[in-house]
């Protein structure tokens, strides 16, 4: 079967043996081959007899079987009195004899029948595993949903989900939040294909809840970040909120709290947009079922916490920092910003470094380093802005936990960048 046309297991089908006579097929093929052409009982009996008889007559020690002389002895040692016992012990002896150094085709083939894994098995499994890993990395392997496994209880999962996050969710609303529109569409279509004219799926998707959650997250992030960064212009606050609301952050939080296995959607694993929507819906459920402070604490602990360790400069990029510094100084009635070289080293080499300071009315505002004077000036202007907005590395960290509970949310907008001046910031109390 294997000689002319090698069938793959899928071609052959599960019930049919794929040809395995030449040992090039998978393990299932070997078992099938064994069933198709079992070793004749007589050959077993003969073999067992010879070994047992040889042992009895003391002319053979196990492991020393070699050469024609030994076989001659076996022929002579055959004795009718030991045939019965030998037939009974034949199987065991066959297995044992496969360990002998002599190559005996009959023995090795019987050994395969009885499941002895000879030296081809390990390399085969290695190759199969290698292929498996490769296909997985290429995305060709289907990933099983966790809910398809036998040990899966959706109710228990939902209970543990709320307990894990230390929140109380409304049960039905939580199920709704975890149901994506694509799942309902797929289920309806599947039932119609099966002949159910009116599927009657009393399920709602999570779009409304997601919209509600999005509003809650946006409002809270604005209030919290304005209070935490009172001197940061409104443009910066908007950029931070946009970052918190971005699909990447939302889906990362969704994955991180274990929504991956719980969400009901068509695709698997869930796409990041589905996951982001689902997480927003979870916040929406919480805003319905829990008081506002509790919902706010949830948003703070899971969404705002993603800002910890991030550089605000990378999230909110000021394109022309020197121009912004000049505008602010102009608004404040101060002198023009004046970049001055503080130190320099290694000019006209590839290791040149310049240290530039920004001064206004001979007052130091900030300094920066760069490999050229232009980059150093830009860095110095950035540093001056960081100092003005109080977002330096040495600024106090974002408040969480008990510290955050006492900070009142700020509803009115921060000063916008166009109107930002040093005088206006004097009345702002920083926390």
């Amino acid at each position, binding site marked *: 079967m294997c000689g002319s046309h090698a069938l793959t297991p899928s071609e052959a089908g599960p019930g049919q043996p794929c040809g395995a006579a030449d040992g090039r097929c998978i393990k299932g093929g070997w078992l099938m081959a064994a069933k198709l052409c079992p070793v004749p009982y007589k050959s077993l009996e003969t073999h067992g007899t010879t070994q047992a008889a040889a042992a009895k007559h003391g002319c053979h020690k196990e492991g020393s079987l070699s050469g024609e002389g030994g076989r001659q002895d076996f022929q002579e040692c055959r004795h009718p009195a030991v045939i019965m016992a030998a037939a009974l012990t034949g199987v065991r002896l066959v297995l044992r004899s496969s360990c002998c150094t002599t190559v005996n085709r009959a023995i090795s083939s019987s050994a395969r029948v009885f499941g002895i894994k000879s030296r081809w098995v390990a390399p085969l499994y290695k190759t199969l595993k290698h292929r498996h890993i490769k296909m997985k990395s290429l995305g060709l392997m289907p990933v099983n949903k966790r809910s398809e496994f036998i040990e899966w209880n959706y109710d228990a999962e939902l209970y543990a989900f709320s307990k894990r996050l230390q929140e109380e969710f409304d049960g039905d609303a939580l199920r709704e939040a975890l149901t994506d529109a694509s799942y309902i569409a797929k289920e309806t279509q599947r039932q119609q294909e099966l002949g159910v004219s009116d599927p009657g799926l009393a399920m709602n998707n999570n779009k409304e809840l997601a919209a509600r959650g999005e509003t809650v997250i946006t409002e809270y992030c604005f209030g919290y970040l304005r209070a935490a960064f009172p001197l940061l212009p409104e443009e910066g606050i908007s950029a931070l909120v946009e970052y918190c609301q971005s699909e990447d952050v939302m889906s990362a939080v969704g994955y991180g709290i274990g929504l*991956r296995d719980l969400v009901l959607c068509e695709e698997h694993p869930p796409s990041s947009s589905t996951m982001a929507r689902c997480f927003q819906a979870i916040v929406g459920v919480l805003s319905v079922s829990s008081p506002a402070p509790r919902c706010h604490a949830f948003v703070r602990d899971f969404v705002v*916490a993603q800002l910890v360790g991030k550089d605000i400069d990378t999230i909110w990029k000021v394109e022309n920092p020197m121009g912004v510094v000049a505008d602010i100084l102009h608004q404040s009635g101060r002198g023009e910003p004046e970049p001055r070289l503080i*130190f320099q080293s290694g000019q006209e080499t590839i290791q040149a470094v310049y240290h530039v300071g920004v001064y206004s009315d001979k007052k130091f505002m900030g300094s920066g380093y760069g490999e050229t004077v232009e980059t150093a000036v830009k860095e110095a202007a950035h540093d001056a802005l960081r100092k003005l907005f109080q977002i330096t*590395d040495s600024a106090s960290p974002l408040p969480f936990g008990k510290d955050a509970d006492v900070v009142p949310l700020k509803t009115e907008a921060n000063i916008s960048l166009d109107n930002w001046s040093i005088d206006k910031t004097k009345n702002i109390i920083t926390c």
Partner: protein
Amino acid sequence: MTTKTWNLFWGSNFVRAPLQNGVGRYVQQLQRITFKFCKTHGGSKGMREYIEKELIGFARENPGVVVYVKPRRHRSPCLKAEYLNGGEEYISTHVNTCEDIVKWVEYLRGRSGYPVERLRKYHHTDYPSIQGPWTPWIHRHPGINIKEYPCEELSAVQPTEISATQKLLELYEQQKQQQEGVGSTTS
């Protein structure tokens, strides 16, 4: 095991927490654990004992962990733990006693789900310095910018050790003091 071997197979990493865990609130990272065992086989004796004695208490103390119990005929027992970040851990508990399994479950309960790796340091920060990076001009007086060069004060050699002449002078002074001391005691 040498460091090279360890790095080859296990790698190394800094201390990290998934999803800024603990910044806001702590979320237990173990999300579900499956106890697989045989109802009759001797190898699962400890596991059966654990299920009878300890499992209810474990589930009660950890409501955020979904516990599955899966009997499988004539197969050796094991623990399968799944974590929030997608990490999985398999522990074979063949012929383990109940006490052993208690320890293994405790081990799985406190894990983060990240693979076990050599930690380069036991602490980590995204901000190694809040004062900015080091430069060659840290702690140098900016007054040297407005000096007129060549400057004798800045060009002078700043000796780090005392010279031979100074050392001789010191020795001479010491000797002199000793002699004076001897003279005063004898008189």
